[in-house]
Structures are given as C-alpha cells and as structure tokens.
C-alpha cells in the first residue's frame, strides 16, 4: 500500500531541490548585473567580479545610462567571439586585445582573434610596476638592477611573459623570471619571499613600488632609465570594441568614458591611480596603427 505521507514528503523534497536548482541557475544567469531598458549590451568573458566586471559595473554601465541593455556573460573569449559574430544586437565592451590576438603555438589564428574593424579606441593604459615587500631589507632599485640572481615574479600568461622578460632581463641579465598564472598566486609568492620582486600591475599597501613602464607616473623611476628594452616605457592597452553600432556612436561613448570622473575614480579605488595615455587623443586610424605596431613588437619578443 502506498504511504501517502511519505509520497507527499518525497515529492516535496524533489520539488524543493529542483526549484532551488532552477532558481539558482536562472538567478545565476545574470547574477550580478541587473538589466537596463536600452539596447546596448555590455560584454563580459572574464570571471565575474574580476577587474573587467568591476569596470563594467563602475564605469561602462553608469555611463551608458538609459542606453544600457544587459551584460552578456559568456564563458571564454572564443565563445564570446562566436556570439559577437552571430548577434545582431548592439554590444560594447572592453577587450584584452593584446593577449587574445597572439597566434596559437602551431601558428594558427587565435580563436579569440578580434578584428581591427571592431576596435573603437584604446580604453586605458595598463602600466607595470616593479615592487617589493615594504621594509624588505636590501631591496630597491639598485638591487633590482645589480642583484645577482634576484627572483622576479611575473604574470606568465601569453604575450605578457615575453614583455616582462625583455624589460627585466635587459635591466638585470642575471634575474630569474618566475611565471605565475594569476595575482592570487604571485601576490602570496611575494609576501612569502618565494620571489624578491614583482613585475605586475598591482600595488598594495604592504608593497613598495619603485619603477613603472608609464612615463606619466612620475612618482616612480621609468624602466627606460635602466633597461635597454625598446618596450621599457610602454604599457599594454586594453581596447573598447563595438559590434552592430555605428563607429560614431561607439566613439562618442568611448570619449564619454575617457572624460568621465568614473574612470579615474575606478583606478583610485583599486589603489593604482593612473593618467590616461596620450594615445587616446589620436585619431582612430592612428590609434589602430599604434596598437598594431606595438602588438607586432611584442610578438617579435615572444
């Protein structure tokens, strides 16, 4: 005989689990991004909560205002490219053009390859700093240049590795370059003493940074002053990209972002204020030429 009480309990339990599964998954569909009423979507292919997501939230979405539609979060840049090629929706976003346009090991086109025609403008500059743990004895610019076998932790991903290695080794040929896949790994490595220095974008209150690739950051010594690398005074540059938008509309939006108070405020909050690179004032064609040449220079280093 069927135990009705038991049956009802079981159905309730299964229903509860299914409801939780669906609601959590659907809620998770757009977990941190509320939809707007406009028609311009913002792309996100990196991890939610990461730097690009924070910039979307703090800068892009507020500045899009009523034009903002929704955040298109797609796992991985290759699938995002698929989406972008096939959608007829307006999409605007930040793209890590430097690292995603590196050919694969066997020389094929990167699956995340972004066409130049979709680049609107340089978004901002990403300077690199040389830093050590605050108060670390004997550490500093002189040791960075002359110290025998100093260990320097870097972001070891793709094109950034070649760039870092060139700048560092042309300042100190005896340095050991130690690659890490993320800041969650290289920051602890510096703290623990596994590496003596970091060559990275981050600056924290427990670190002392003394050199920068950005000539505008006058509080630091520029790398070009002690490294013979051709790229010692060059940053990397994420770009704004647009799909299904007129270049006029997209450029206007990029300019609005560049002249906003939100963009400098974002860097201020992250503890790493920086000026806009002078290249954002170039014409679009000049910016594209600059990016292309600079990117080719990096590829040659790899």
């Amino acid at each position, binding site marked *: 005989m069927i135990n009705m009480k038991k049956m009802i*309990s079981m159905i309730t*339990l*299964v229903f509860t*689990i*299914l409801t939780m*599964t*669906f609601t*959590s*998954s*659907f*809620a*998770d*569909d757009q*977990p*941190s991004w*509320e939809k707007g009423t406009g028609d311009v979507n913002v792309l996100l292919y990196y*991890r*939610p*909560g*990461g730097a690009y*997501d*924070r910039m979307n*939230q703090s800068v892009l979405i507020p500045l899009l205002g009523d034009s903002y539609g929704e955040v298109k*979060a*797609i*796992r*991985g840049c*290759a*699938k995002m490219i698929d989406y972008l090629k096939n959608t007829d929706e307006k999409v605007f976003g930040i793209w890590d053009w430097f*690292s995603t346009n*590196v*050919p*694969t*090991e*066997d020389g*094929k086109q*990167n*699956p995340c390859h972004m066409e130049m025609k979709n680049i609107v403008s340089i978004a901002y500059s990403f300077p690199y700093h040389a830093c050590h743990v605050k108060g670390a004895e004997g550490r500093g610019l002189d040791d960075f240049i002359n110290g025998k076998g100093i260990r320097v932790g870097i972001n070891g*991903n*793709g094109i950034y*590795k070649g760039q870092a290695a060139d700048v560092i080794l042309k300042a100190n040929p005896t340095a*050991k370059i*130690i*690659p890490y896949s*993320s800041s*969650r*790994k290289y*920051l*602890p*490595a510096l*703290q*623990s*003493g*596994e590496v003596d220095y970091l060559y990275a974008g981050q600056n924290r*209150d*427990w670190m002392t940074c003394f050199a920068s690739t950005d000539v505008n950051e006058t509080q630091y010594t520029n790398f070009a002053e002690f490294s013979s690398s051709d790229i010692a005074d060059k940053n990397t540059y994420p770009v704004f990209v647009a799909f299904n938008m007129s270049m006029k509309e997209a450029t206007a939006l990029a300019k609005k972002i560049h002249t906003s108070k939100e963009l400098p*405020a974002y860097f201020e*909050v992250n*503890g790493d204020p920086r000026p806009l690179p002078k290249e954002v004032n170039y014409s679009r064609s000049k910016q594209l030429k600059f990016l292309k040449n600079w990117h080719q220079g990096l590829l040659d280093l*790899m």
Partner: protein
Amino acid sequence: MYELILAFITGSSLGVISGIIPGLNVFVSILLVFPLLLTWDPTSIMFMYISLASVHQYFGSVSATVFAIPGSNTSLPALQEGHSMFQNGRGSEAIMTAAIGSFIASMFAIVLIHFSLPLLDIFYQMFNTHIQVFLLSIACITIIIFSGNRIWISFLFWLVGNLLAMVGYHDFYGGWDFATFGINALYSGIDLLPVMISLFVVPVFAKAWNNGGKIEFDGVTMSGYISAARTMLTKMRATLARSSVIGALAGFVPGVSWGLSTKLAYITELMLRKKKGIYNEKGDVNCLVAAETSNNAGVYTSMVPMIFAGIPITASTALVYNILLFQGMVPTVAFFQSLYEIVLIGFALSSILGLFIAGKYVNFLKVFSGLNLKVFYSGIFVLLLIICYTTAQKTFAGWDNMVILACLLPFGYLIRRFNTMPLIYGFVLHDIFLEGVYRLQSFY
C-alpha cells in the same frame, strides 16, 4: 547588529543550498547575492562569507553521502566512502561522524590560528611552489597506489584525468592548443561537472544498479550524535588530530586551499588504513572523517592570508576582496586585521549551526528509506542532468556540457568496476600541479 544577523542568515541559507546542489559552489553562491552585498558594510560581507563557506561544507557531505551528488570536488571522499556506507545501511553513522568531525576540526582551526598568530610568518612559507608541488606529488602518487585498482590502471586513470583537464587553449604555456579540434566550446577547457558525473558518479550508480536492493536509512538522533562523538573522541583521536593539522596547513596553499586539504587528509588516512589492512571496502568511516575534518579546518585557515596579509588565495576570497573594491574602499592589511574577531565569531557560530541543521535536513531524507535503489538512482541521475545543463547555461554553455557528458558516459559505464578516484584527482589537480612543475624549472 541587524545587518550582521541578516548576513548570518543569508550566508547560512546559501551554504545549505550550495552544499546540496552540485555546481553551485561558494564562489557562485556569492555571485547570487552580489547586488545585495554591494549595499552591505564590509563586516557583514565577511560575516556572510564565512557563514556560507562553513555551512556549505556540512551540506556538501550530506548530499554526497545520501544522494551520491558531489556538491563540489571536496565532496569526492564523502561520495566514495560515505555513499558506500549509505548503500550498506550505515548512512546515519556516516553523516553523524562526518558532521562531528567537521565541527571538531572547525574548533581546532580556530584555536590553532588564535594561538599561532605570533608564528604567522612561518605559515606564509606555505606560499611556496616547492612545497606545493611536493604536496601535490604525494597526493597523486598515494591515490594511484592506494585506490584499490592495479597500480597501472590507476596510473592510466590519473593520466586520462590529466589529459581531459589539458583540453583547451593555454595562454600560460605559450598558446598551447590541446585537443580542441577547432571547436570553440573546448577552448576554455572541460567543466568539472560533466567529468565528475560521467566518470565518477555514473560508475558508482552502475555498480549499485546491478546490486539492486532498497534504501535503508534511519536518520540521525541526538543520542546518536553523542554516541558518535564519544566513539570519535576515544577511537579516532589520531585521525582527527592528523586531519585537522593537514587541513589547517594545506588550507594555506594558494589556488587550491581546502580542495587540496581534503584530498591530502583523505589520501593519508587511506594509505595508513590500507597499510594496516583495516580499510573497510564497504565505506571506511575513518577516511570519511579525515576528509570532512580537514576541509572545515581548511575553510578557516584559507581566510587567514586575507585577514592578516590582505591577500586572497582562493577564488571566493578573491571575489569578496573585489566586492570591497567595488564598494569604493581600498582594503588594507589593517582593515582586514580589524575584522579578525568577527570572522572568528561567524565561523564558530556557523559551525554550530551547520552541525545541527545538517542533522535536521538529514532526517527529512528518511522519506527515501525503503525506496528501490534503481528508482532512487534513476531520479538522481535525471536531477544531475538538469543540474549539469542549468549551471553551465548561465554562461551559455549548457549544451556544451551535455554533449561532453554524453561523450564520456559510455566510458563511465565501461569502467564501473574500478575506483575512478585517480582520474578525478588527475583532472582536479592538473592545473595547479602542471603550473607548479612548469614554474619550478624557472628557479633553476
């Protein structure tokens, strides 16, 4: 005060839900309440996080034990040992001992960290590639030797796990494209969930399906808890101490943290029990307790680098850190240190809550008692398919996961006679292991 209570309730509730549902880990759970967190003060955010992470561990092991649903990769030992115990009518014992072990380890971790504050610098030495690679090598070698298969078969499984994890485009290794066959969906690699379901859960189901039978589950009682606690404190002291220490120390390893602590403690216990010839093939309670003990200890210690050095070492603590940045604050070391007491209280409270509400939830599961195992596993399998699809669909990858699952399922069925734990360990530990080995070369 009101916001702290709300933070505690939110964190604990999310811990329950994320513990039960696979794919909904601590990281994703925080994303669920992301907009809410942006309006909270930092103290409440930390309080919510620690409650969530702590309660999550209790419920993940219950789901793995009863349903063979792996809430996350830290639930693998609970699935292996706990579910075997459940199949053999010892589900209540598995759940009670795991919960008490988790609670004891939580308290141990609190005491350990509190009294080791002056020695914190030594703990930071754990942020070291050499130690990490050493620990990971030990974990892999031990699971290959002691998984119960022939060593060459376990090695093969481990290798396959690594190969599956290698699929994708690897920027870190100079643009290495491995086995993507030009399919864009594979460039970001293969998700853990379809691999775990098809190659770990399905073999467990297939074996049980062949055996048939009915579910026998009596639930848990307060007297049962007390009795289990007594037994553990008299007969499992060594296991508890060993696993708590392993859990607390391995919790410091960046990138893996309590994921590694669980595996190391489980493998250590497995090795010791097999060497002594006292390992119970039908579900070993000591191995289960070791794993569950260590992950709770690891949850707490993984917070320590953020609190005392301002460095998040897990994806979820990094997300919490980023939420603080979102709010416009610059999180300094001094700021995090000021939150130490509140984190400690939150962890202690949520551990007590986890222990008791896990018991209540478990008793609700008594409705399954007497159910035919074939019906039970069919239902769970359908549920897993839904979960596998919906959790990936959030980033438009639902069908990708289903196709991968369909491709791997026949293999899962074919290898049902073996313990496929080495394969899953190979898959889960691959990234950090390979990166560690790759980085080691740079030092010499």
